[in-house]
């Protein structure tokens, strides 16, 4: 929502603006606050090595979350991302290693991305053509794809990937450049292109959008393709980072992805969301996770604290919305 205050409403608009800004950067502010608060007690939190390390963990998470954000803006959800990560990982690895005839890394990566997009397209097609609820469709494909990945490898991990490929995951600058490019591109696509506006419209009111000539199905479809593509890209990084084609890659991070997106402020009901918010959400969770690890707390304290902090952030958000913006 671009802001061009109308003079005779100056006061009202500006307060709105302020509250908006507040909500825009609240999560970021919290992150910084948390960082500052913990830094003294947390040995090594601020060190460059640790930040780089956290960054390496953050990048793939953010990439997947970007795709998730696009899907959520259309009012959908994609539970299959983690399975797509796993499947693309093993397929790509199979290709690039000996038993795949050692395909060159570039081809391998391209195949992985194509596969990811293809699987996303499959989700999108089913959801738009057959008009099935995204939740259940992607839930089914999640189960199927992960099962398929494990079956494909008969539970064996695949290793011995070409160094040129590993570089993608391990040379932080490359990974960073890729991610940053993707993030900014997605952001600009959403805010500055017709497609972006269409995505929001689809999420806000599909019927109205359809009547207004918005290609609703195409946009929804595209969102899932994008999500699949992002998952594949993340898979390239994770696979490179762990030097392994693993059929269970990323199995544990689904809730982190959705959680980060939602904590960022993107609505599960569609029509609302920003890449920026998602970025803040991911940053928030990563820093939290990293700090808790550095404190070398026991696993249960980590889990509890994580839950508590997420809740705290959400509560803050809710309370602020009520008092600053007011219900209208």
């Amino acid at each position, binding site marked *: *929502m671009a802001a061009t205050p109308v003079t005779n*409403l100056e006061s*009202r608009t500006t307060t709105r603006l302020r509250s908006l800004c507040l909500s825009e950067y609240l999560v970021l502010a919290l992150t910084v606050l948390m960082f500052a608060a913990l830094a003294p007690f947390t040995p090594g939190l601020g060190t460059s090595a640790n930040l780089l390390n956290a960054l390496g963990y953050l990048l793939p998470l953010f990439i997947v979350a970007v795709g998730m954000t696009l899907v959520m803006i259309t009012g959908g959800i994609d539970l299959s991302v983690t399975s797509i990560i796993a499947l693309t990982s093993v397929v790509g690895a199979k290709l690039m290693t000996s038993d795949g005839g050692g395909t060159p890394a570039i081809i391998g990566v391209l195949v992985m991305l194509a596969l990811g997009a293809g699987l996303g397209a499959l989700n999108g097609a089913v959801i738009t053509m057959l008009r099935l609820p995204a939740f259940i469709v992607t839930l089914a494909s999640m189960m199927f794809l992960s099962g398929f990945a494990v079956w494909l490898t008969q539970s064996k991990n695949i290793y011995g990937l070409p160094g040129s490929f590993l570089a993608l995951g391990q040379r932080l600058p490359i990974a960073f450049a890729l991610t940053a490019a993707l993030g900014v591109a997605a952001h600009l696509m959403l805010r500055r292109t*017709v497609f972006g506006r269409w995505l929001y*419209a689809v999420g806000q009111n599909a019927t109205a959008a359809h*009547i*207004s*000539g918005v*290609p609703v199905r195409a946009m929804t479809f595209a969102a899932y393709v994008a999500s699949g593509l992002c998952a594949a890209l993340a898979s390239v990084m994770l696979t490179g980072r762990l030097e392994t084609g693993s059929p269970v890659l990323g199995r544990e991070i689904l809730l982190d992805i959705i959680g980060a997106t939602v904590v960022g402020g993107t609505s599960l009901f569609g029509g609302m969301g920003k890449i920026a918010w998602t970025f803040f959400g991911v940053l928030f969770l990563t820093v939290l996770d990293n700090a808790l690890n550095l404190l070398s707390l026991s696993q249960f304290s980590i889990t509890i604290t994580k839950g508590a902090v997420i809740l705290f952030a959400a509560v803050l958000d809710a309370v602020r919305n009520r008092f600053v913006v*007011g219900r209208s």
Partner: protein
Amino acid sequence: MTTNKEQRTANSELLSLRGIEKAFFGIKVLKGVSFSVPAGGMVGLVGENGAGKSTLVNILGGNLQPEAGTLRFAGADYAPQNPQDAARRGIAFIHQELNLFPNLSIAENIFLTRFPRAGTTPFIHRGEMHERAAELLRKVGLEIPSHRLVKTLSAGERQLVEIAKALSIEARLIIFDEPTTSLSERETTRLFALIARLRARGLAMIYISHTLADVFRLCDDIVVLRDGEVVGSGATKTFTTEKLVSLMVGRTMNQLFPERRAEAFGSEEGAPILEVRDVSQSGVAENISFSLHRGEVLGLSGLMGAGRSELARILFGLDPRERGEVRLAGEVLHHLSPPNLIERGVAFLTENRRSEGLCLDAAVADNLALVTLPQHGRTPLRWLLRDSLQAAVTRIRSVVQLDSKTSDTQPVRTLSGGNQQKVVLGKWLLSKPKVLILDEPTRGIDVGAKFEIYRLIHGLADQGVGVLVISSELEELMGLCDRILVMRSGCLVDDLPRVQFDRERILAAALGTAKEVKS
């Protein structure tokens, strides 16, 4: 009796408001409103959208609390904190957007908050519930089994259910907020008959409507609201339409409809822009054929369910058609779909503003821009040219005369009905249509806004746009159109040029019998 309080004895007074004030974001929407409703009386509350009517209703209903002023009901102070309070005191509401749950049965909707229990058990006494429901339905003249799901009822039937609900709480005062907006002629007459019956049983009512004729016909007293103030009140007979309208809009309006430039009448000479040949869809439309000419305002009349809106939806490619041909400026359109038609200069304003016309939570600007976005996208990336977009938005705002108080970033949800409709109209006008299909363009909109929209329509026609107007208000069509088509159960049954306009004849055609016609 008049609502002037000096001359009334307190006991005859059922509801009274004294100096009610309310503000949102520091903006006063009610500035000391005072009037009262006598027991068994019927007060018409009129005013433009944004005059404060709905705020007033919300205060009476306990959804909002006034900042100043006092309410008295049935001789006792009345300060509802929530809808339950209102119900407990016997005040019922018939809202414009009906408050029924389609996924529940009629009976359940009626007793939603006060289910009859089976003795002391926590269970609903279904027998009793349906018995009492049937009883109530009979009272409102609705002969439908009370276990039917509401989603299977027509708009008119739902309205009657709402009233049955009101009766079920032994309401002493019923507040109608635009009750007829979604009703057909027949359903409306049925509703009025019911209202008469209820009044005979001593119920008091507040009747809010933009259809002044109804207000004159039904109410004893009229209260006129403008910008949150009572600008006029008194017995109905002391008002004339002109006086009422000028009070509402704050200036004298000598007519409800703008002058149509003479030569446009029955403008067969304008070349046909939209030609429809034998369009059929079983159960909806049968062999519909007509043509719409450049610069013509063509009305489409008929009862609810006659297939008017359905036809429009087919023409715009929203619903399928089995047979038939549609030509646009001579060219046959094989594939009907919104993008396709929009590109060729067809625009369609649906009857459901909120559910199909707008993205309620999106900003005004975004809604205005939605249809024409592609024009502002620079290929290949469809990069938005935001300046040209902004320019277009600003321009169209002034064309449709959108309330200057509304900002571009404001969510449409917060706008009044009239302004919302202007936004919808605006987004279509931006696409510079050659053919404009308007389904109920003035539904739930105040006189002032109506007049502006009529003028817009005529202006477009003068520029050679062909306009097809669907409306349930016959007066509207007769005042607005050059020609009127009448539909009955999926067929075109009549076609009258302006010179032959005749209410009786049109109704007769619509009803299919010369007898049923009522004035």
